[in-house]
């Protein structure tokens, strides 16, 4: 739940008793959930079969269950190295997005100056066109800067792509922090920067976590940019790894299923913990 949302929403209705819904609700919800996760379950379970089993009966269950595919991926493939690269790039991107985003959004939310709205529009322009369109010239530029085949070649553009959305989400949030708090801080002798550091950052943690999660997930899942700028196999991230593995071992269906399962596991775990935060953080944003 966000500060901004709290200020506008009616009191949370947690006290209301949660009832068992009617059977139709459950039937529909079950059907929807099944469609969503059946393919995922199929892939995870399929990783416990052998390729001959899969070929003989594509829709069957493992019989017997084999753990060899998963063990093979974890010990013999480049899975760990790719997971490490993904983590470095995603963490770097997240840190950059949050730091640069909160600084810019703070100025756009709490300073009055000529050109403020122009600067805001300038950033929001980035929402109007797909960053993917700039990928070819971006590659050429990174090549000229000698950044190809480095983490920076992915991190810096990803920060840039994520900034518009970050600023759009953070600005109303930072603007909603009461003026009185800023005045009180000023009376206590704290400047605007102290106000940012001591009051704004702690208060806006939910929004920062939301933009951080969005940036992290986008970076973790990114494919096109890494595909173009990370030619060095040792720098490959997990999405590249999944694609490499599946085109390299085409006949090893069970192995591909295992690799794909392992690659999606971090995202699934991460999202399970972060789901509430994302929905809560978006409430402020969709209000506009």
């Amino acid at each position: 739940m966000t500060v901004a949302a709290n200020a506008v929403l009616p009191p949370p209705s947690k006290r209301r008793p949660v009832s068992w819904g009617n059977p139709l609700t459950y039937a529909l919800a079950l059907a929807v959930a099944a469609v969503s996760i059946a393919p995922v379950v199929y892939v995870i379970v399929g990783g416990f079969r052998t390729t001959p089993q899969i070929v003989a009966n594509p829709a069957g269950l493992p019989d017997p269950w084999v753990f060899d595919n998963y063990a093979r991926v974890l010990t013999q493939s480049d899975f760990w190295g790719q997971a490490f690269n993904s983590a470095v790039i995603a963490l770097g991107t997240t840190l950059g997005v949050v730091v640069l985003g909160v600084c810019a959004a703070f100025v756009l939310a709490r300073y009055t100056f000529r050109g403020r709205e122009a600067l805001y529009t300038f950033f929001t322009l980035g929402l109007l066109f797909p960053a993917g369109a700039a990928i070819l010239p971006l590659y050429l530029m990174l090549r000229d800067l000698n950044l190809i085949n480095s983490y920076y070649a992915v991190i810096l553009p990803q920060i840039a792509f994520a900034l518009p959305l970050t600023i759009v989400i953070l600005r109303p949030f930072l603007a909603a922090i009461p003026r009185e708090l800023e005045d009180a801080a000023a009376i206590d002798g704290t400047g605007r920067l102290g106000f940012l550091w001591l009051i704004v950052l702690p208060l806006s943690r939910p929004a920062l976590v939301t933009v951080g999660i969005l940036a992290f997930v986008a970076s973790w899942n990114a494919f096109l940019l890494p595909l173009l700028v990370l030619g060095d196999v040792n720098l490959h991230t997990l999405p590249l790894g999944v694609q490499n593995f599946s085109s390299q071992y085409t006949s090893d269906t069970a192995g591909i299923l295992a690799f794909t399962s392992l690659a999606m596991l971090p995202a699934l775990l991460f999202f399970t913990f972060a789901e509430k935060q994302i929905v809560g953080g978006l409430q402020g944003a969709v209000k506009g």
Partner: protein
Amino acid sequence: MTSTNSTLNPAGGASAPPAGLRPARRRPSSRGAENRRKWYEIIGLTTPAVIVYVMFVLVPMGFAVYYSLFRWRGVGPPTDFVGFDNYVLAFEDPIFLDALRNNAIIVVGSLLIQGPIALGVALLLNRRFRGRTVFRLLVFVPYVLAEVTVGIMWKLILTDGGTVDALMRSLGLGGLVQAWLADLDVVIWTLLFVLTWKYVGFAIILLLAGLSNVPHELTEAAAIDGASWWQVQRHITLPLLGPTIRIWMFLSMIGSLQVFDVIWVTSVSSVRSLGASATMATYMVDNGFFARLWGYGNAVAVILFVISFVAALLFQRFLLRRDIQGAITRRVN
């Protein structure tokens, strides 16, 4: 800072009479210094973001326009100026026109299919029942998975004689089995299905966030006045969701225009190069990056950019404007 100021300005100590105003944090005589400091802060805090954004989003876009005017293989500086020839070539290439058509199918198909499904599921999952949180999590799963993972996953499931085929045969639908990802007439619809499965969760997330902003008082009051569940949704919830729906449509449209990952890993390159499953983005990467036709690829990049930008501006102008201005409590239908 304060001590520095009072030495510079002996007249104004801490006890300088503020003439009935609230405690002055900016003394009149140090206004200039204060103002300068404000600008230092503004510039200091925004410059890093501006630099990164300009350098890695706007400058490349500018270079794309420049490079697109040359026939250039990417080695040395571009010298072979050809004007708008690359653009003409693109619009004369049937594969590119196919890519445009496929993008149109994906944009329209996504909006028409995902919108109603997401609305239905969001209204369903907005009802209070035990285990609702778990169902919400399960529905979001496809959205959080990497596009590449989703692509590979469906490629394995949809392969000839694979799971989908086996399931359909066991259900007696063997006659409907297709070469899902290899048949030139079928592949784009298969991909539309995969994209729908992948992205409908995003629409649901946004709509659920929007629904949580609909005041309970309103819907409860209507229910007490005898409105049916459907009437409440139709006359109260949906109108209040208008802005959320339009923001989703906007994001979905922009996303559909640049769709790349799922298509790239799912469709066989021969199918793609025949245009059956190409999109503007895959066409751009195939030609610009892998075929090293840098001038031509950049022309395609500019076309992709212009189409997205114009579509976004039109959308913004005609549909989103009132959302940006307005409160969500205003009736919008």
